[in-house]
């Protein structure tokens, strides 16, 4: 029991107490700041955290969670201190955390719809790139001569900032959705193709020799040998492609969209509604983090054979 209590003497809990103490400070912003929202939010996280730390046995995993929560608390504390609790920052440009939550809840249906539309567009363009770039990269790697010159072609296209495709895509494909899918396809295609070819080039020769001595057929050679052998590099390309996709889609939504978080941010920035801009930025950050997290999970599952 003593040990368990001792374990609770950590930065996370300390910051939680600091946060509570800060709430005693008087508010300095003139408009309503809905501080109760952020208090409920932080207490909610703290309850979940305490439950986890009593139930969870895995020290390592817990440490990561604990660190993430501590950093979140710190950011919220700094945010509150700079805004509602001191008015150091301009009230119109920097909303207090409570009011951001209030706005988020009010806009939730619109936000969910936006995220859904963005994710569907990304999945379509990205999957299209995956199913074309990977087989093409494997085949190009197989025919080394063809592949050699092709590698430069892919490097050339890969080095073009994909944002330049946006005007063309909008001109050629009048529907915003189609244009966005195309832009995401074009942007993630080249890094995935390049990584696949590089992956195939770098396969240990002995592995291919071993497969040949088994009299492996051509298709099995491509998909059971070369694909998994090149997978570590292919996944690096995929992760790069996914990152670019989000940047591009958000830009496209800001330029010509009528849906998505990019559009949400752009639309309200025209009105100077900074509360909603902050909502949009935080939502985008959280969505990308969650997707990255799942991508990494998938990646470590697919590469579980690498010790």
């Amino acid at each position, binding site marked *: 029991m003593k040990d368990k209590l001792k374990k609770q003497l950590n930065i996370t809990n300390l910051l939680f107490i600091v946060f509570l103490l800060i709430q005693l400070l008087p508010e300095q912003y003139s408009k309503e700041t809905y501080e109760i929202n952020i208090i409920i939010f932080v207490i909610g996280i703290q309850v979940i955290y305490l439950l986890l730390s009593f139930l969870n046995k895995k020290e390592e995993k817990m440490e990561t969670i604990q660190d993430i929560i501590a950093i979140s608390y710190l950011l919220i504390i700094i945010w509150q201190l700079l805004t509602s609790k001191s008015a150091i920052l301009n009230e119109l440009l920097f909303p207090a955390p409570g009011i951001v939550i209030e706005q988020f809840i009010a806009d939730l249906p619109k936000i969910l719809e936006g995220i859904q539309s963005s994710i569907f567009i990304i999945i379509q363009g990205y999957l299209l790139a995956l199913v074309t770039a990977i087989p093409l990269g494997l085949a190009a790697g197989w025919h080394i001569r063809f592949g050699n010159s092709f590698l430069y072609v892919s490097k050339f296209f890969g080095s073009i900032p994909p944002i330049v495709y946006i005007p063309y895509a909008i001109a050629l494909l009048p529907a915003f959705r189609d244009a966005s899918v195309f832009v995401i396809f074009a942007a993630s295609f080249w890094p995935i193709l390049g990584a696949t070819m590089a992956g195939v080039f770098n396969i*240990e020769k*002995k*592995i291919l*020799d*071993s*497969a*040949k*001595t*088994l*009299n*492996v*057929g051509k298709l*099995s050679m491509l998909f*059971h*040998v070369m694909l*998994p*052998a090149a*997978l570590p590099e292919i996944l690096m390309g995929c992760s790069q492609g996914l990152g670019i996709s989000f940047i591009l889609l958000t830009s496209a939504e800001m330029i010509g969209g009528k849906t998505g978080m990019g559009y949400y941010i752009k639309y309200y920035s025209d009105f100077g509604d900074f509360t909603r801009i902050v909502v949009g930025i935080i939502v985008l950050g959280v969505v990308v983090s969650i997707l990255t997290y799942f991508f990494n999970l998938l990646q470590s599952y697919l590469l*579980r*054979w*690498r*010790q």
Partner: protein
Amino acid sequence: MSKIELKNVTLNYAERKSVFTALDDVSFSVKAGEFVSIIGASGCGKSSLLSLLEGLNFPTQGVITIDGQEITGTGEDRAVVFQHYSLFPWMTTRGNVIYGIKQVNKKLTNQELTAIADDYLEKVGLSGFENKYPLQLSGGMQQRAAIARALAMSPSILLMDEPFGAVDAKNRKILQELLLELWENSEEKKTVVFVTHDIDEAILLSDRIIMMTSNPGRIKKEIPIDFPRPRTGSHLLESKKYLNFRKELLATFFNDISEKIGGEEVAL
């Protein structure tokens, strides 16, 4: 008729401006069911020679036949064990063996495949490690799995390129005896061509040793080994005859090496 026959085989590697002769006028034959070791200092062309038998490369001159047929590529009649990378690291040991069997027999059900694979894994002492990935196993265990895969494909010829070269001394001894036992007890004796640079390993395992010299790779001598089988390392070591024989072999071997300037390292 011999199982494997090489007639005046020469292998050149084209380099940027010159031609490198890795094998020069190599001829020998291997009888069906015979265990032949090829021994020589590293760089003398042992792997090059084996790659011709594997069907991964072709002679510049000369002919190689198996059962009278010229080799046109890799084939189901041959299975190969390399020093490294025989196994696919992304497949479990069982997956590796099953994948090998599938290449020679496409009709088996998953159940049958698993049963055969597990049977061979048991034979090499890997029961309980079926679901492990190669990188989770020691070097010696990886080679056991590679041997299981090779045998499970039921080839008539086994080609092994320094299969125990990267295994520690103690496990190497164990693996040598395991290989001997599997070879001696198989229903239809497999023809084995075994590359090594370890003289004791060659004497213990082989019916015949083919000694090579380097630059260019040539056959120096063929030495029949007529110690009675079944053999074990400890039995051999006790016999006077073995010690004398080994001494003679070493003398021949070193004679060759000292002829070269800066002769290469040989494990003994």
